[in-house]
C-alpha cells in the first residue's frame, strides 16, 4: 500500500469515526426526553419509595430514620387481622384478604369466559365483527364511568336484580349496601369490563392454530367439545399464561372500581376495601408516606412473586 493510500484510508477512518460520534450524539438528543422523564418518574421514584419506607415523615417536617418500623406496622396489622380483629384495627389485612378473594374470582372467570367466547366466535358465522365490538366496548370505557352506571344497575330495585328474577327467582340482594355482596358486585363488574378484551386476544391466537390439526381430529371422530379440550386449550397455552399474568397484575392492584363502588373507606364493614385503597389512604389521608411506601413495596413483592411463580410453573415467560 502506498503512502497516499494509507493516508486516504486513515482519513476515511477518521471521517467514519466522526460520523459515528455524531450519530451517537444525535441519538442521545432524540432519546433524551423519554430517558429523562422515565429515569426521574420511574427509577428515581422507585428508589425514593424504597428509601422512604425506612423513614417517618409527614411531608413537611424533617425525615426521621425508623429502620424497619414501617414494615412492622404492616405485620402487626396482618397479625391483628389473623387473630380476628375488626376492619378498623386491621385495614391492611382486610384489603389483602379482599383483594386475594377478588383475584381468585376474577382472573379464572374472565380467562375461561374469554376463552369460551373466543371459541364460539372462531367459527364461520356472519357478523363476528359485531360481536367483537360489543364485547370490547366495556374495555374502552373508563372504569369509573362503568362503576357509576353499575351502582345504579345494582340497586335493590334495579335492572340487574330484575334480570336475575328470570335466572334465580327470589334472589335479589342489595348488592352495594350489603357487606356480603359488595365484593362480588365489584368482581362481576370487573369480569364484565375486561373479558371482552381478552376474548379478542384468544381469538387471534386461535386463528393461528393450523387448520389441519382440527381436520385430523375430525377424521378421528372428535366432536367440537373434545377438539376444544384436547387441541385448542393446549395450543393456547402461551396466550393463557399471558392473559392470566395480565389479569393478575390488573386485579391485585384494583383501585378505580373499589373507589367508586365502595368508597375510599371500603364501604359497609370494609367489604370493598383493597390494598390499593389502603396505600392511597395511608399516603394522602393519614399522611404517612413512609408507611404507604412500605405497603406499596409489599404490593410490588406480592404481584412480582405471584406472576413469577405462575410463569415459572407454566414455563412461559411473558416479556
Amino acid at each position, binding site marked *: 500500500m502506498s503512502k497516499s493510500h494509507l493516508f486516504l484510508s486513515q482519513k476515511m477512518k477518521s471521517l467514519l469515526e466522526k460520523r459515528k460520534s455524531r*450519530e*451517537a450524539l444525535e*441519538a442521545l*438528543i*432524540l*432519546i433524551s*426526553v*423519554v*430517558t429523562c*422523564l*422515565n429515569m426521574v*418518574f*420511574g*427509577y*428515581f*421514584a*422507585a428508589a*425514593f*419509595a424504597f428509601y*422512604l419506607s425506612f423513614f417517618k415523615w409527614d411531608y413537611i417536617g424533617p425525615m426521621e430514620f425508623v429502620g424497619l418500623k414501617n414494615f412492622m406496622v404492616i405485620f402487626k396489622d396482618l397479625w391483628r387481622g389473623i387473630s380476628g380483629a375488626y376492619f378498623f384495627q386491621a385495614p391492611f389485612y382486610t384489603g389483602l384478604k379482599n383483594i386475594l378473594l377478588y383475584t381468585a374470582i376474577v382472573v379464572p372467570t374472565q380467562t375461561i369466559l374469554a376463552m369460551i367466547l373466543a371459541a364460539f366466535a372462531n*367459527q364461520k*358465522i356472519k357478523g363476528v365483527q*359485531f*360481536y*367483537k*365490538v*360489543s*364485547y*370490547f366496548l366495556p374495555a*374502552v370505557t*373508563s372504569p*369509573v*364511568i*362503568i362503576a*357509576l*352506571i*353499575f*351502582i*345504579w344497575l345494582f*340497586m335493590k330495585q334495579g*335492572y340487574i336484580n*330484575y334480570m336475575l328474577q328470570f335466572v334465580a327467582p327470589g334472589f335479589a340482594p342489595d348488592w352495594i349496601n350489603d357487606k356480603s355482596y359488595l365484593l362480588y358486585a365489584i368482581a362481576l363488574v370487573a369480569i364484565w369490563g375486561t373479558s*371482552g*378484551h381478552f376474548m*379478542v386476544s384468544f381469538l*387471534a391466537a386461535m386463528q393461528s392454530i393450523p387448520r389441519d390439526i382440527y381436520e385430523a381430529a375430525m377424521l378421528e371422530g372428535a366432536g367440537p367439545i373434545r377438539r376444544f379440550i384436547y387441541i385448542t386449550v393446549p395450543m393456547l397455552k402461551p396466550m393463557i399464561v*399471558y392473559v392470566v399474568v395480565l389479569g393478575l397484575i390488573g386485579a391485585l*392492584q384494583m383501585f*378505580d372500581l373499589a373507589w367508586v363502588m365502595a*368508597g375510599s373507606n371500603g364501604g359497609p364493614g370494609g367489604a370493598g376495601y383493597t390494598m390499593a385503597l389502603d396505600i*392511597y389512604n395511608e*399516603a*394522602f389521608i393519614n399522611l404517612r*408516606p413512609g408507611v404507604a*411506601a412500605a405497603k*406499596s*413495596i409489599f*404490593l*410490588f413483592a406480592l404481584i*412480582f412473586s405471584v406472576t413469577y411463580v405462575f410463569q415459572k410453573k407454566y414455563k412461559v415467560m411473558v416479556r
Partner: protein
Amino acid sequence: MRSSLKLTKLGWIALTCFVLSLFAFIYLSPFIRSFVASFMTWEQASRYPPEWIPDPFTLENYMKLFKLELFPRWIFNTALYAGLIVAGNIMFSSMAGYAFARLKFPGRDALFSALLALLMIPIFVTLVPNYIIIYRLGLIDNIAGLALLSLANVPSTFLMRQYFLSLPQEVFDAARIDGCGPIKTFFYICLPLAKPALGAVAVYQFLGAWNAFLGPLVFLRTPENFTLPVGLSFAFQRSMWTEYTPIIAGSLVAAAPTIVLFIALNKYLIKGIVIQAGKG
C-alpha cells in the same frame, strides 16, 4: 347417518348464535339501558320493573348537567390532558423509538431493557415519590404537571421502536447516502413513513388519558381542575344532585368520545390489541 350429522352441525351453529347473542346482550345492555334512562325522569328510571320508553321524554338531566358550571370545565380539562399526552407521546416516543431501533450508540440495548423493566413496577410504588416531586416543582393541581408524568410513555416508545424495526433498512441507507444526519432523517423520512404507528400511539394514549383516574385523583386538588372521571365520582360522592339520572347522563357524555372513536376505528383497534398480545 348423514342427515343426523348435518343436524348436529346445525345444532352447533344455533347454539353458537345463541351464546354469542346472549353475551352481546349482556355486554351491551348496560349501555343501552343507561342511554334510554338518561332521557327519563329519575322517578321513571328507578321504577320497578324497569321501563324502556322514556315517558315523558326529557332533556332535563343533560340540562342539569350543563347548568353545573363545573361540568364544561371538566370536559375541557379532560380534553386538554388527553391532548397534551397524545402530543407528547407522538413527538417524544417516536423520536426515541427511532433512535432505539435504527441508530447505534453506546449502551443502547441496556438502556432500552432498563426502560422496559419499568413496566414491572406498579404505579402505587412510584405514586408517593412522584407526588412529592410534582409538589416540589409547584405543579400540584395543574393539568400540565399531571401530564408531565406520562408525556413520554415506555409502551408508546416500544410500539414505535417495533414499527421502525419493521421498515426496510434501504430507506434509512438511502437517506444516509444523500448526506442526511439522523435527526434530519427522522423529520424528513421517518415521521412521514410512521403515520400508521403514530395513529396507533395517538389512539391508545387518547383512550388511556381520557379514562385515567388515579393520576388525576391524586395530582388535581380543586374541583375546577378535575377531569371527567374524577369530577363525576366527586359529584356522585358529594350528592350534587338528589336524583341519579344526571350522573347517568354525565357518564354517557364522558364515555361518548371513547365509544365513538372505538366504533369508528374498531377494526384497527382490535387488530392493535392482537399485535400487542402477540408480543407477549
